[in-house]
């Protein structure tokens, strides 16, 4: 299995995957956006501003999921020192930061007409801001600390610490009184979102996941090339 990582097979695999995603991505994007922006019904209360949700919710999910990935891989790396894991976490981090910012900005645009304010210091919104700061810290440690082993060590500890924030974000709307509404989609039990809106939401989620995969593969390839140029024996 480790042959997969250790020889240049990985480049052909990245190439193949990138080509495959490229071939379906734009068709999916057009389908997703047209369902989200045109074909799905407006909300009975919010009207058309509900359409912001089709970007906001998937972006928030992705930002949480990618930070969980980074944190778990960082913990593994901290304990077992697997040389490939830092390359993966470094490739995920910018994607997560971008989607955290998208979630915060779209939420703020939605909040103005719905709540009557752009920003509220409630538990959900503040903890999302903390998540963005953790992403920034993770990225800047890699930029500022020149010794790579040290950078990996420090960023792993930061990521492991940031992992505590993930359940806080997820359950903030249940533990404390917040302006943000509780989750509409529940893993167990019935969802309080109508299926005519749930379908475009899941489609948009899939589209954005594809986009993440595309960016990840590109970044991952760059990281491998960079490290191979630096020292061929490391891999």
């Amino acid at each position, binding site marked *: 299995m480790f042959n997969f990582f250790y020889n240049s097979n990985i480049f052909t695999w990245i190439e193949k995957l990138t080509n495959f995603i490229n071939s379906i991505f734009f068709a999916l994007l057009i389908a997703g956006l047209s369902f989200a922006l045109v074909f799905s019904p407006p*909300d*009975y209360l*919010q009207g058309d501003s509900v359409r912001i949700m089709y970007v906001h919710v998937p972006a928030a999910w992705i930002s949480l999921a990618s930070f969980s990935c980074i944190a778990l891989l960082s913990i593994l790396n901290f*304990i077992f020192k697997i040389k490939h894991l830092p390359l993966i976490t470094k490739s995920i981090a910018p994607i997560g930061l971008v989607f955290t910012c998208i979630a915060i900005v779209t939420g703020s645009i939605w909040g103005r007409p*719905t709540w009557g304010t752009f920003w509220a210091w409630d538990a959900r919104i503040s903890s999302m801001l903390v998540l963005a700061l953790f992403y920034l810290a993770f990225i800047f440690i890699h930029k500022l600390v020149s010794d790579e082993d040290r950078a990996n060590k420090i960023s792993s*500890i930061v990521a492991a610490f940031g992992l505590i924030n993930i359940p806080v974000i997820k359950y903030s709307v249940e533990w404390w*009184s917040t*302006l943000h509404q509780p989750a*509409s989609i529940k893993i167990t039990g019935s969802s309080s979102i*109508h299926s005519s809106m749930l379908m475009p939401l899941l489609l948009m989620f899939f589209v954005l996941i594809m986009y993440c995969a595309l960016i990840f593969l590109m970044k991952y390839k760059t990281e491998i090339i960079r490290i191979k140029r630096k020292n061929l024996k490391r891999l």
Partner: protein
Amino acid sequence: MLPKKVKKRASLLSIFLLLSVIGVFLILNEPNKNILYFNSPTDIKISQDINYNKKMRVGGMVKKNTLNIKNQEIRFIITDFKNEVEVSFKGTIPNLFAEGKGVVAEGKLQDKKFFIAERILAKHDENYMPPELKNIMKENAE
């Protein structure tokens, strides 16, 4: 069997994580409850030390048939279905503000039953549905 170094790193990290979880838990559970975005009418009723000069937020549902608009003054009752607080407000309200919907009022408490708001925020609930469905549900209810 794992090497000794790996074991050492694993135990170091788990101690660090355990301590930080406890730390975060203590910070978030502080007794002043600053983390709560708003207080419910019940919170106000049972709390002993209310600072009437300090801005605070009260949240709950706008009680049905209590919304009263007179000379630009809006009056309504916030309820959490156990206790109530009457709110008076002058200014613009968000679109989603309505009877029977969630609301957060920001302002100063006059006494435990009367609140003068400086800002009204509407709280949206987690229900999303198309308008046709809402009409059908209304007809069924009637």
